[in-house]
Structures are given as C-alpha cells and as structure tokens.
C-alpha cells in the first residue's frame, strides 16, 4: 500500500530550488515592467513590488504543499504552519469520552 501514498520527493526538491532561482532569472522581466510600455518610465518600486508579490504567491503555494506533507499535528511543530493537519489528540480525547459514556451507561444498566 505504501507506494500509493508517497508524494513525489523530486517534485518538492525541484520546486524548492527553482522557486529560489525564479526570482533571479526573471529579473530582466521585472525591469521591463518598471520601464513601462514606452521604455522611458523609471518605476523601480513597481517592479520590486510586482516581483515580491509574484514570489509571495509561489512561496505561499509551496508552503501550503509542505504543510500538507506532514499529516498529523505535532507538539512544538514550528517548521510548518500546521493549518490543515489532523489533530489526533483531540480526536482520541473525544473517543475517550465516548468510551467513558458507554461504560457509565453500561454500569447504569447493570445496576437496574
């Protein structure tokens, strides 16, 4: 069964490296944006803002993928944002309460 549930390791490694390089590789494009249609405008701040926003979008997607990689919530897990993780202690605590409820009902029945 295990082979079906592996997320591709190469995807993650390649995306991570390319994500770091993409901003540098696309430098000329952002400069082109700063120069505008006519090529005479000098808007460096717009070029930087667009470049940063693009990188933030890509990085956000990548981090979302990474945070899903580790399915279960951990104590002191500061590596990822833990947004979509499965909170096992909470789930098991509910089960514990259910077990106690079943037991108490059973004891009530046995005393009747």
């Amino acid at each position: 069964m295990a082979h079906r549930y592996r997320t591709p390791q190469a995807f993650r490694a390649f995306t991570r490296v390319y994500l770091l390089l993409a901003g540098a590789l696309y430098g000329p494009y952002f400069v082109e944006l700063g120069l505008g249609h006519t090529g005479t405008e000098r808007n460096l701040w717009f070029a930087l803002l667009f470049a940063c926003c693009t990188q933030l979008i890509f990085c956000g997607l990548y981090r979302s993928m990474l945070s899903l990689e580790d399915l279960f919530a951990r104590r002191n897990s500061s590596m990822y944002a833990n947004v979509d993780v499965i909170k096992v202690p909470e789930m098991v605590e509910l089960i514990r309460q259910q077990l106690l409820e079943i037991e108490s009902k059973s004891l009530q029945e046995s005393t009747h």
Partner: protein
Amino acid sequence: MSIAFTVLDEKPSLARSHALTQPYCSLGRMGELERHDSPWTRVATSHSVTYAPVRKSNAYVRAMNNYVVDLFASIVAAARVLCAFDVFLSLAFTTTSTCLYWFLDMDAAVNISWTAVSFAIIIPITSGISLSFQRREKALAELGMLLGHLTSIWSCAHSWLVPSTRKEGGPKLVLLLDNFVEAPEQKREELRTLFDALLVALIAYLDAERWGRARNTIRCIGGGVEQCERMAIAHGSRMQFAGHMHRVRVLCQDFKRAGLDGGQCHRLDQYVTIALAAYERLCAINECVALVQIEPLSVTACKIHASASMRACPPVCMRIPQPCLRRRIREP
C-alpha cells in the same frame, strides 16, 4: 434495557409518547432557511440532546461579523504560512536580482514568457497539493476506521449479554464483564487500563517526528543518524501500540471464560483485525523515508523506503564502506 431507553427515562411523558412520530422538518420547505426553531429542535429537547440554538440577532450583522472575522483569520493564516526562511531568501534573491539589472544592465530588460514557471513550479505544486490532500483524506478514513472499531470492541464488551455462570439464582442473562467469576470489577479496570494505554500509544506514535518525508536530509552531515534516531522513537511507539492491540485480542479470547460463545468471540476478533489493518495502512501513509546520499563514489540519489518492512535503519546499516566498494569494483 438499551441506552436509548435510559435517555428516554429522563422525559418519559413527552419522549415516549411521541417517539418517531414527530417530523424533524417540513419536506416542503427543504432548502429554505429556517430562521428560528425547527421542528427537530423540539424533538431534540425532549431527548435531552443539546444543540446550538439560533441567536435571534440581525442576520446581516451576524453575516458581516462572520465575514470580517473570517477575512482577518485568513490574513493571519496566510501570514503564518509565509513566515519562513525560504520565503525571505527568495524575496532577497528577487529584489537583489531586479536591483542589479536595474542599476547595472538596464538594456537587459526583456519580456519573458511565464510558461517555464508554470511547468517548473505551478504544475509540481498543484500536483503535490492534490496528492497530499488524497493522503490526508485517506489517513482520516483509516483513523476513523481504527477508532470506530476500537469503540465497537469496547461497546461490545460493555453491552453483550451472556448466560450467567452463577448458580445461586439471579438473572439468566448478565453483562459479559459481570460474568467473570473472579473479580469482575478487576476485569473492568483491566480493560480500562488497556484502552487507556492503547489510545495514548496511538497519540504518541502519530506525534513522533517523521524522519524523512517532511524534510530532506543529507547523510554526510549527520542526516542518517538523525533519521535513525527519529525512526527508533517512532517505531518504539508503534511497537507499543501493536503490543496493546495483541493484549486486546487476548482479552477477546479471554471473554470465552465469561461464557461468550466462539462465534461472538470470532466477531470481536474480526473487529481487532480490521482495526489492526486500518492501523497498518495509517502507518504506511505516515511513514516513508527519503534520504539524499552525497558520497564520493555514488551519484546523488534519492532512496525511498517503505519503513513498514524495515527492521532497523537500512539507510545507514546498508551503507557499504568506501574501501570495500572500491575493492569490489576492481575485482572481476
């Protein structure tokens, strides 16, 4: 007497006389928003079922409040996702590169297609998210299967009736746990302790740090040793859980001494088997090891092992010393 009747005893006048006779909602109004009390809420009250009452405030104010809170929470969640060294590093690269081109070589400005980005970044990320969500849903289903069957075993042990083994009169059918001749209370306590240990072992196993999939490591800077340590911790918890499940199975067989017949015992055993199978699948989803090897004689490679079949830590133990490897290569 079942649990349902125990609940009904609390409101005998209303609940017994109207059980299953009152509609839960009007079929003609399905899909419409019922602003205040629905018919099912009255039935729920009669059965002592708690539910969230509808607050009688302005719906538009509530909706706007929810929207604002949701928006703010989304911003916070996005900020938490983006707070990482990788993000700052890529931002630094981007701004530095743009500034360098701007000040040093403005003539290099050119319109570059984004097709390469979509192939190199977007497709792997979207595929990765999709695959991860499939794993997550599968893991939730397996966890539900495991916990559901454990609850079933517990419930069966506390509700099944067996012929009484006591000779001095009394009821002919008694609860399974009460039918142990020697200290039934001790048997209850034993079952309670066993399930307590079982559930805690499950939490501990799933709380253990994964050793490979969530993070790449490099062997030559100590990644192998770190992975081995993490693997040993996780496998320790896993062995504990397996041991407790074995004790549950033994306990199910022990119920034969309390008068449970073989067929019912086999049914309980099936529950244990299904729970164990779900647990193994959960382990397979949780554990996969990846170790990047960087060694003089080997090309950088990514080895992926399913740890379910591993006994110790093969990535380190299976490493062949370099002199041996050279000797083998030279030998015909």
